[in-house]
């Protein structure tokens, strides 16, 4: 396998990397067999992940997009969607390569660092603003600045409270809870286990608890339509520990 001879930082982003791969293989961007480039891209990102190298999120985002397109190509009924997404990606690559060409032409004409303007030498004058505005203009501007939801306002301390005092749910407490429920009712539909949970931490802990219990063969998942979790006999679930 070809070793990684470059760093991602050299690239302006995933599109840049893909264009690099295209040019490296002397492919024509307008008729590019994009799947071969996709393959390589995924390989590079995969290699880097195996080596625990830091990968910017934009590169990972593109990787997941490529994987998705690849997945669709394996599903006969989704061919059309796959083609659309591929076309979209090709279009983006073409657009970006144009952007790069234009940037190069612009760059050649850059004289910004060689022209000097004269610093203003203005007579002492009163620069006080004198126009009169209606109050509504200010209000409209305020709403425009903060947006309707006002979500961009820096969050109040209240928002941080859940983070600071994070409600941590332990997996073991969820194991105890699950066993307790199964003790009362030996078969519970899988989804019902999560039905009343709103807290994310609790959700994750419950799921991990299920996995843990399956691994220990304390419960099993019945392959019926609803995926039912069932206590395993003859090693019956123990009564709750706590």
């Amino acid at each position, binding site marked *: 396998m070809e070793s990684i001879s470059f760093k991602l930082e050299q690239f302006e982003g995933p599109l*840049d990397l893909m264009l690099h791969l295209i040019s490296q293989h002397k492919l024509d961007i307008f008729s590019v067999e994009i799947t071969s480039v996709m393959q390589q891209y995924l390989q590079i990102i995969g290699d880097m992940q195996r080596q625990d190298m830091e990968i910017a999120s934009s590169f990972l985002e593109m990787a997941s997009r490529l994987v998705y397109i690849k997945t669709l190509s394996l599903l006969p009924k989704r061919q059309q969607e796959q083609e659309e997404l591929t076309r979209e990606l090709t279009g983006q690559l073409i657009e970006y390569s144009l*952007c790069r060409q234009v*940037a190069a032409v*612009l760059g050649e*004409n*850059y*004289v*910004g*660092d060689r*022209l000097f303007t004269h610093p203003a030498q203005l007579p002492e004058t009163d620069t006080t603003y004198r126009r009169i505005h209606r109050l509504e203009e200010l209000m409209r501007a305020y709403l425009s600045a903060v947006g309707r939801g006002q979500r961009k306002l820096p969050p109040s301390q209240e928002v941080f409270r859940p983070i600071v005092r994070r409600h941590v749910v332990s997996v073991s407490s969820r194991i105890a809870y699950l066993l307790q429920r199964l003790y009362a009712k030996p078969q519970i539909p899988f989804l019902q286990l999560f039905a009343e949970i709103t807290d994310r931490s609790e959700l994750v802990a419950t799921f991990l608890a299920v996995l843990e219990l399956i691994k220990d063969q304390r419960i099993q998942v019945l392959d019926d339509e609803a995926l039912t979790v069932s206590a395993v006999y003859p090693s019956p679930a123990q009564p709750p520990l706590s």
Partner: protein
Amino acid sequence: MEQLRIDRRIEAILFASGAPVSCERLAQALGLTKGAVYQQLQLLEQQYDTQKTAWQLLRLEDSFQLCTRAEYAPDIKAALAITRNTPLSQAAMEVLAVISYNQPVTRAFVEQVRGVDCSAVMNSLVEKHLIEEAGRLELPGRPIAYRTTDVFLRSFGLESLEQLPAVPGREEQEQQTILEKP
């Protein structure tokens, strides 16, 4: 008092303000027609060019500005100990390319074309006065639109945006996409 020459009065305003001054504003300040001012500006431009003065008259859209000629840059940099010689980064150049050809344009659009987050680059271009805000677009979320400035024109030796080099293979229809993008 002796009557001051119009060309000198125009020169004085351009010299003192440093920044580009529109033909209209010159006309208003001097109580002249735009045509008369424009004629004087053209004469000044010729005069600077034939006399090879250290400064030149730049036209930026409808505005005019005095600035030094590029060949004096080494002397100026030496005398004023200017080290800000850092050329624009590739990223900055790409962002400028997208904005200049599509303006007014949102950050989201620039990011879509480049496939990466551009907020830091765009902020630094705003700081360098190469781009500026151009109000908000009537799209969901009312995003801020950006456009290039007269500093941009000056920095790339352009008189107006119409002088931007043609994009290879770019078609009319692509100009339209600006309005449709999310």
